């Protein structure tokens, strides 16, 4: 069979096998199948990538026609170009490492079979998403990853809080999905096809830049991307989704699912280029999100929530890149982010795993000597996250900042905002490192990570360091970015800011020269810290705006007033029936009399109409 078709097939098959075993499969086999299938897919991707790098030829494979309704006949078809190769490599490569790690992390859990079912199903859906030739198949993968995200976030379903978090994730992304579906409808009716490449060609011939229709369609697609990628205003689900197991957060909420929105915009770049207002909106959304999330991460004390807000912030950078037209930089940052964020999440998982499920960073400390490999992972990951020089994050983030600066009008503002975000990123990520790994130990680890956890960590460390040295095979995918003159001052400022952040973090949290307690001594500062801690009170805002009114309306309508209309028809019918029933009294004389009355009336009518 064709290698391309095998790639989503392996995880799909393993998910089917695992689900049919109804949880009775022995651990070893379940884990081997679960992780092994993704490994096999990774090998297939590697083979595919080797060929692609050699000849750069785009591959297409059609499996069958999905449905055929009138003119509309979407196919199950795959389209492999440079962008797809990059995404597939990230999904299967990082995914395999995470699966391997999960074996050890989830070994003592009783539902390990169910875990690998959901994880493999997720990988299969995500692969479908990135390999899809048409937007309908992409939407299938989109919804599939949404469902798997719900299943995995609510994995430990016996605790109702996890269920609530899973529902929140699903519902908030659903809002975005609905917008995206509307966008798909619009595109289908206007352009006649949902196949991505023909669609972009048709759009270019049918629409002018700045027309209302492409703006509307791309705005709707942007709605979907915003939901899935946890950007403002639909970002509230991601911090709560940390209720799931940590490898889940690493895979779904760092490396793959949340990048689906970025992928969507990059894939349909042709449409977005026709709608400059939407592009600008993308950039501003990215900027606002990265700043808000950055400030919020600064005030958190749960190790996973810091990383969650960090993810939201970094995806803001990717949106910023897409918004200014630097599609390749956005995808580059997507890849490097996958490396170091997965690394950070896995390392956090190792900390949690070894510290018997402690999440609060202020109850950790001094783990530098006790968990050395984890410390190394965290340090390298944070360095890459903060974009310290020569890490992979450095190359990708600086590319974005330079592209932002190069844009006319709003470019410098975007650049300044991105710079502030970089400063914040550096501060909060090193805050995390210094508080957790330095100082005195408040909780002792009760075990060390095994090779299945340490191995992936080390591999991801390597990737986080050298991942930025490779040029991505994106040459043929995006239109060539305009060469902009390099402004050295801007470059040096961009390089220096993360280092400044590192210095500030050192002074505040390790050296003690700048006392954080004195900074938050005043009530105003404390209020500000609380404001940032609650995520800028957006959750509360949504509660007031949407949730409470919805509940109130549901309460008012609890007696089904709409049904009353239909019930009233029934009631009227029954009332008439009971009134008429009086006529049927069972007496013979009465019946005879009524018959005579009828006869009289009939004859009267006949006599009237007679000529």
């Amino acid at each position, binding site marked *: 069979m064709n290698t391309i078709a095998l790639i989503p097939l392996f995880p799909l098959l393993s998910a089917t096998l695992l689900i049919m075993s109804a949880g009775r499969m022995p651990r070893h086999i379940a884990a081997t199948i679960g992780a092994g299938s993704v490994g096999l897919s990774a090998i297939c991707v590697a083979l595919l990538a080797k060929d692609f790098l050699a000849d750069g030829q785009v591959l297409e494979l059609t499996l069958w026609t999905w449905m055929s309704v009138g003119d509309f006949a979407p196919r199950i078809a795959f389209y492999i170009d440079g962008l797809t190769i990059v995404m597939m490599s990230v999904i299967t490569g990082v995914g395999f490492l995470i699966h391997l790690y999960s074996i050890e992390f989830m070994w003592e859990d009783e539902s390990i079979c169910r875990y690998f079912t959901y994880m493999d199903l997720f990988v299969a859906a995500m692969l479908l998403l990135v390999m899809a030739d048409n937007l309908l198949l992409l939407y299938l993968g989109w919804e599939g990853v949404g469902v798997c995200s719900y299943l995995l976030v609510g994995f430990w379903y016996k605790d109702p809080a996890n269920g609530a978090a899973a529902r929140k994730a699903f519902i908030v992304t659903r809002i975005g999905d609905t917008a995206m579906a509307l966008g798909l409808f619009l595109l289908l009716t206007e352009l006649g096809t949902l196949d991505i490449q023909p669609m972009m060609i048709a759009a270019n011939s049918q629409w002018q830049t700045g027309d209302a229709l492409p703006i509307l369609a791309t705005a709707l697609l942007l709605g979907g991307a915003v939901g899935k990628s946890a950007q403002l205003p639909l970002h509230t689900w991601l911090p709560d989704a940390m209720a799931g197991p940590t490898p889940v957060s690493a895979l779904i909420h760092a490396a793959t699912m949340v990048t689906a929105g970025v992928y969507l915009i990059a894939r349909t770049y042709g449409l977005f280029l026709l709608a400059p207002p939407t592009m600008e909106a993308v950039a501003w959304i990215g900027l606002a999100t990265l700043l808000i999330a950055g400030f919020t991460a600064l005030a958190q004390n749960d190790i996973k929530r810091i990383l969650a807000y960090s993810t939201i912030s970094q995806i803001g950078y990717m949106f910023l890149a897409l918004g200014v037209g630097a599609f390749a930089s956005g995808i580059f940052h997507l890849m490097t982010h996958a490396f170091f964020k997965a690394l950070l999440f896995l390392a956090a998982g190792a900390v949690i795993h070894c510290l018997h499920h402690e999440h609060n960073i202020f109850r950790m400390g001094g783990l530098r000597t006790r968990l050395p490999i984890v410390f190394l992972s965290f340090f390298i990951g944070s360095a890459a996250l903060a974009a310290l020089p020569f890490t992979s994050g450095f190359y990708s983030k600086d590319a974005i900042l330079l592209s932002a600066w190069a844009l006319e009008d709003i470019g410098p503002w975007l650049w300044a905002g991105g710079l502030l975000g970089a400063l914040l990123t550096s501060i909060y990520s090193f805050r995390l490192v210094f508080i957790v790994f330095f100082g005195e130990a408040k909780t002792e680890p009760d075990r060390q990570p095994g090779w299945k956890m340490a191995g992936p960590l080390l591999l991801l460390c390597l990737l986080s360091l050298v991942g930025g040295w490779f040029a991505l095979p994106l040459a043929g995918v995006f239109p060539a970015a305009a060469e902009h003159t390099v402004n050295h001052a801007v470059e040096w400022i961009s390089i220096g800011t993360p280092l400044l952040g590192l210095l500030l973090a050192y002074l505040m949290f390790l050296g003690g020269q700048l006392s954080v307690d004195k900074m938050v001594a005043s009530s105003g500062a404390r209020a500000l810290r609380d404001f940032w801690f609650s995520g800028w009170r957006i959750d509360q805002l949504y509660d007031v705006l949407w949730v409470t009114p919805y509940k109130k309306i549901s309460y008012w309508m609890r007696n089904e007033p709409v049904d009353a209309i239909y019930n009233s028809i029934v009631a009227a019918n029954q009332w008439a029936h009971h009134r008429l029933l009086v006529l049927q009294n069972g007496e013979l004389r009465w019946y005879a*009399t009524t018959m*005579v*009355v009828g*006869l*009289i009336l009939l*004859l*009267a009518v*006949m*006599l009237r109409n007679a000529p």
Partner: protein
Amino acid sequence: MLATLFYIAALIALTSTMAALTRANAAHALIYLIVSLLAVAVMFFLMGAPFAAALEVVIYAGAIMVLFVFVIMMLNLGDTGEDREREWLAGRNWFVPGAMAALLLIEMLMVLGDSQGVTSGNAVSPKAVGIRLFGPYLLAVEIASMLLLSSLVGAYHLGRRFIVRRGEH
């Protein structure tokens, strides 16, 4: 003269019918009815249908009415029955049936009053009736006989006295 006879018979028929239907005593009512039927038979005879007149007397008055008499005797209504009937025949009960009947009468007169035609002066002999019966109406005769058979069986079954033993329903 025959015409006068005809109208007298008609008058007798009408009055005795009215009398029959307004008696309290069932046996009296039946006798009046028999008189009415005999008057109608006279009318048939005068119109030139002797066979029908004979049938009217023999079967209608002779068998059907006698059946009625037998059943009334069997039911043994007695004086209490008669008093009850008188009570039910009180004046106020006549209003609705009377009004309905009057209205219907007016309408029927309006409908029937337009009819043209005269009875022919010729009698139709029983022989002619017999020929018609064995000719075109053969099937009707057979069906009529089956109807009578079914009513025979039905009447026999319905007239049975069902003995209810104690404890049985």
